[in-house]
């Protein structure tokens, strides 16, 4: 399908979305501060402290198995000391972002969306570390937001989305291809329109638009490729929208894999089998973390 037409459809679609949420201030500020020197991170801590709901979520999340504190952490201050400033930014961003999708369970439920998004965030960060990508935190954050288009598509276009899933029952498929067929656009274009509305930085927009076509990326193909591979791995390790995305892949044939190997030749030696098994081991941690964030907020 013509790319321009898909973009046009997405723009019209997003313009028609009623009550599209706005981006939380904390999330915007965290992104803005990402490239700034560490001293301004005090501001993030202040923002958390000023928002009781956010503070409570941060504390819940830091006590989840993913962060493994030896003793329960009961205050934001303790959380800051335990995690250090870098992680607290991730937490502040994620926790502030939760509200954006509250009550927008469409055909894909929000919990499975978060499990997938967290998974892709966590795995993007692991891959970023392995390939020595300089900003692992950014890899985590773009991983979290890469599929924002999916939530809104499945919420605002429920009938078409249902028809899409019914059509593929029992057969392997990639969501992005089927969306073009059933909706005239995909979560990439819809996500891009929303990201622009929310004033996301250009490299975030690029990942949202091109995480399924990293070879077309101009600003940061490595980052797009990291998220692409993380997305694939999560889709085969139970972080697959509750089974709504059926993916099969061979790394040797993935363009993102070639991009990453070009960036970090040592990746050719990666034990992918073990990588998968280790990821499977982390799935319950990721699911627990999602549960911990939603506990008590009616998610």
């Amino acid at each position, binding site marked *: 399908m013509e790319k321009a037409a898909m973009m046009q459809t997405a723009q019209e679609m997003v313009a028609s979305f009623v009550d599209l949420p706005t981006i939380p201030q904390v999330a915007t500020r965290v992104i803005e501060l990402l490239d700034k020197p560490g001293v301004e991170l005090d501001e993030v801590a202040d923002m958390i402290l000023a928002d009781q709901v956010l503070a409570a979520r941060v504390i819940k999340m830091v006590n989840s198995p993913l962060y493994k504190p030896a003793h329960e952490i009961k205050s934001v201050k303790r959380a800051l000391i335990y995690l250090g400033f870098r992680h607290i930014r991730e937490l502040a961003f994620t926790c502030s972002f939760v509200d954006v999708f509250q009550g927008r369970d469409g055909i894909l439920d929000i919990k499975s969306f978060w499990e997938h998004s967290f998974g892709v965030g966590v795995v993007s960060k692991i891959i970023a570390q392995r390939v020595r990508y300089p900003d692992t935190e950014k890899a985590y954050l773009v991983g979290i937001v890469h599929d924002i288009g999916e939530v809104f598509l499945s919420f605002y276009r429920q009938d078409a989305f249902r028809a899409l899933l019914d059509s593929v029952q*029992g*057969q*392997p498929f990639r969501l992005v291809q089927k969306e073009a067929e059933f909706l005239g656009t995909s979560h990439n274009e819809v996500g891009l329109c929303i990201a622009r509305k929310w004033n996301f930085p250009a490299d975030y927009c690029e990942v949202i638009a091109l995480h399924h076509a990293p070879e077309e990326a101009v600003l940061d193909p490595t980052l797009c490729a990291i998220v692409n591979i993380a997305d*694939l*791995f999560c*889709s*085969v*390790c*139970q972080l*697959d929208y509750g*089974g709504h995305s*059926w*993916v*099969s*892949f*061979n*790394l*040797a044939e993935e363009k993102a894999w070639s991009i990453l190997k070009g960036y970090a030749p040592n990746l050719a030696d990666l*034990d*992918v*089998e*073990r990588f*998968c*098994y280790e990821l*499977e*081991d982390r799935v*319950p941690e990721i699911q627990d973390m999602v549960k911990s964030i939603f506990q008590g907020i009616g998610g």
Partner: protein
Amino acid sequence: MAFESKPMDMKGSAQKISDKDFEQLRDYIYNVCGIYFHSSKKYFLESRLSRRMEVTGSKTHAEYYQYVRGGATGSAELKKLLDEITTNETCFFRNMPQLNALENKFLPEIVAVKGKIGFKKLRIWSAGSSSGEEAYTMAMLLLEKRATLLKDWIIEIVGTDINETVIGQAKEGVYNSYSVRNTPDFYLKKYFKEEAPGKFVLSPEVKKLATFNQLNLYDDNKMLFMKSFDFIFCANVLIYFDAASKGKVVQHFYNNLQSYGYFFVGQSESLHGVNDKFKTVHFPGGFTYNK
């Protein structure tokens, strides 16, 4: 390779294994045998280890770890430990994600390729078939496709094992309730007859599709005759081989597989570092290898 089918013993007063000891032992088992112990199986490993620690007189997990790493006695011990931890692996419909992928993707794919050239014959090998559960699971799955995808196709399923006793059991086709514990009701009702409580007799229709022979995977001459398979399964067998033998046997599998075929190992196994020709193909809940 023969594995007994007996219920898992999760009870007992096993010494608690620390995260560090668990990870150390897991890494060692993975590096030597290519089998990965998921964290969710920690307690299972703990209980199995306690038996081996008792026999070897190891007081702590760290002490046992040193023992199992030490020379010839260590490698003999490692085999015994593997026996403990791979027991009860065998049952019908053991690896559901694998079967789903096979049914929905790999089988239709191969049928399309072979159908195009008018070669309507499917060959499947269960290497290390034990008492036949894996081979017969495939037989049942394929029987269900007889009227549709596999209409007019010839199906050949071969099971091989080094152990004659289990080959005999496979040919007999009589199973206990533990072997059928994962079998979906649909298949259980359709293809088994419960002759007595806990005695499940496989239907002749299924048995007819599979043949079983004694075969040593080390036997190069015989391995040369196992030709042109579309799917080869070899679960929890290679873990017993040393690196060199493993490389040789896997090379045989590679040669014996059609260019479009797939090679499946066990649910937690890995061929990393064993053969650099096979490519890994991922699917939800697992992966397989192809050429």
